[in-house]
């Protein structure tokens, strides 16, 4: 027993003496924000790649290995990462701090009435794709800063300074993006999945319909026909979709209607050359403007 306590003490001392905070994030967007705030004081890694659908992830032991070494794991929450509890259990890391970044986000699409699978893959606490509104990224950055400061008080000022610098940079970009997106304000667009609620709300775009008949449900011929009618009636020019979904159904609809399928990443590293959240938003906005 004595040996066990000595061993645990050594492990604890090693952790305390370690300069870096080990952070794992569920998505690459959180990873980018964490790096902006933690910079060289943290060691960060992520689980879901930028070109992967974060709703469905296979339980790989390699993800458990990442969490095993982590001090903190940040998640989007709102039931996006249903796979995370299994990974945390598998990691056997009993001191891991789990932080849900959705806590202070103003949620959209919170379902009312009876919630069951007949409504598709809905999220009972609200739509989890809030990072596509850059204003929400500022809230995420604050949450990350507070967590890192609590965990590593010696560097709290450093994290605060980095957060402030990041928010200044983000505010400047938000101002630019709002100007660039002005021509799309009030326009109707078709989206593939309901990932775009926060994005459309921020930039004043109308969602005329989704290619998925219900969230998470594969397109069907009858629903495609409805979407074709909407596109023709409203003269919609674009079908916007996440790059991890198959473009089969949107392409068929586009062939019939003459609309353009705009396939974009919705996470950092979603395609080559998108290495930060700001680059991601620049890319999405440029693609939309180019195809309007």
């Amino acid at each position, binding site marked *: 027993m004595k040996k066990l306590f000595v061993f645990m003490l050594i492990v604890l001392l090693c952790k305390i003496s370690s300069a870096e905070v080990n952070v794992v994030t569920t998505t690459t967007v959180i990873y980018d924000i964490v790096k902006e705030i933690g910079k060289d004081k943290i060691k960060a890694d992520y689980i879901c790649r930028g070109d992967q659908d974060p709703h469905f992830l*296979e*339980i790989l032991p390699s993800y458990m290995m990442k969490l095993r070494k982590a001090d903190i794991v940040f998640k989007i929450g709102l039931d996006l990462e249903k796979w995370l509890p299994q990974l945390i*259990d598998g990691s*056997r890391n009993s001191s891991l701090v789990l932080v849900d970044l959705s806590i202070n986000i103003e949620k959209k699409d919170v379902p009312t009435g009876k919630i069951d699978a007949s409504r598709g893959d809905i999220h009972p606490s609200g739509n989890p794709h809030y990072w596509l509104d850059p204003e929400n990224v500022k809230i995420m950055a604050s949450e990350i800063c507070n967590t890192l400061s609590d965990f590593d008080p010696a560097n709290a000022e450093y994290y605060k300074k980095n957060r402030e610098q990041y928010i200044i940079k983000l505010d400047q970009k938000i101002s630019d993006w709002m100007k660039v997106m002005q021509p799309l304000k009030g326009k109707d667009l078709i989206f593939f999945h309901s990932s775009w609620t926060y994005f459309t709300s921020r930039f004043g775009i109308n969602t005329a319909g989704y290619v998925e008949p219900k969230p998470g449900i594969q397109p069907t011929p009858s629903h495609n026909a409805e979407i074709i009618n909407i596109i023709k009636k409203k003269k919609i020019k674009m079908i916007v979709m996440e790059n991890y979904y198959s473009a089969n159904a949107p392409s068929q609809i586009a062939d019939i209607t003459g609309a353009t399928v705009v396939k974009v990443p919705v996470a950092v590293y979603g395609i080559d050359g998108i290495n930060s959240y700001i680059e991601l938003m620049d890319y999405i906005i440029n693609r939309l403007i180019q195809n309007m």
Partner: protein
Amino acid sequence: MRNFIFLLLLFFYPAVTVSQSNVNPDISLIGSFNLSSVYNKNSENNGKLLFHDPALEMIVEGYLNPYSKAAGIISYEDGNFEVEELYAHVVRGLPLDAQIKAGKFLVGFGKLNTTHPHTWPFISRPLFHQIYFGEEGFNDIGINLSFILPTGDIFTTFDAGIFKGDALAGSAQEEDTELLRGNSPVFTCRLGSFFSINDFNNIEAGVSASYGTYATLKYLFIQYGDLFEAFSLKNESLKYLYTGIDFKYKYKPDSYTALTIQGEAILNSRQVYSIVNEDELVLHKKNIHTFGAFIYLDYLFKKIFSIGARYDFTNGVIGAEPSELSLANDDQNNTQALSGWFGFYPVEETLAIRLGLEQMFFNYYGGDTSTETKAFLQLIFSLGPHKAHPF
């Protein structure tokens, strides 16, 4: 020992103090409907379309406290309700990051045995499972300890467990054989390593072993030709040793496509009784070594379709009446099978429709052979929370 008990009390303490809870566990229901047809001239069901009783699994699971989980799985099959699994699982907080699982559960011999059949891409249980583990797989009452070994970026686990051993004697119960398992636990262990080749290619390999007494006999009745002889054995124990290897490779470039290749093999070494002198009917204890293996390939495409094939080999005759205690004691005959399937998964894991075909080849001692063809149609639904599937 006192320290161990103290640690156990420490970890179960929160479960006692936090006994009032308003959090419900996850409850899910899995239903399965099966149609089959057998083509075998010797079968009374030759060519008939067989509607099997629907089978169900009701799963209740959740956290007991921050350290432990528990699950109960009640199954209904062939008109009987059964506790398929019922266990508590300490998942974190133990020294050396160990995990303890205690109760009745699927034993970690090989990789496939620990997963439920509805998660497999194919319909029928691999042949060697049926011979060496029984119709329901290696499912037993016991306790298992699991450790993560320090092997760098390769995720390596070592599991060791002690089990009652009834599962291994399950196919051995003959009415005229008094079979006492009594206090004869069996020991099982597995060393498994997972390695990510890159973001799209992953592989896991493992070695397993199981050792113990599969039967303790007072009497043994053996039919030899036209003779039927009873032997008194005075609680003789018969030992077995299973050694196994397993691997799984998966290539998954995106969420719409996946190629899986998985295989397992088992070497069965066990003591059996046989008659060595036909004239004097002398019973002799000897060691036999038999073998079983399967390998399959499954290709998922467009997210909703899967197609695959499996090859099986095992000593023993599938579907035969057990002689000399168990089908696993048969070192004379063997069964091979080639099977194929087509799966349709319209909405994620909530619904699966599978069509399967299995051709079995029976090879008997002396050179006789026979064949049997089976066709299957299966519908599985899954109601309730769906956990992500492990690799």
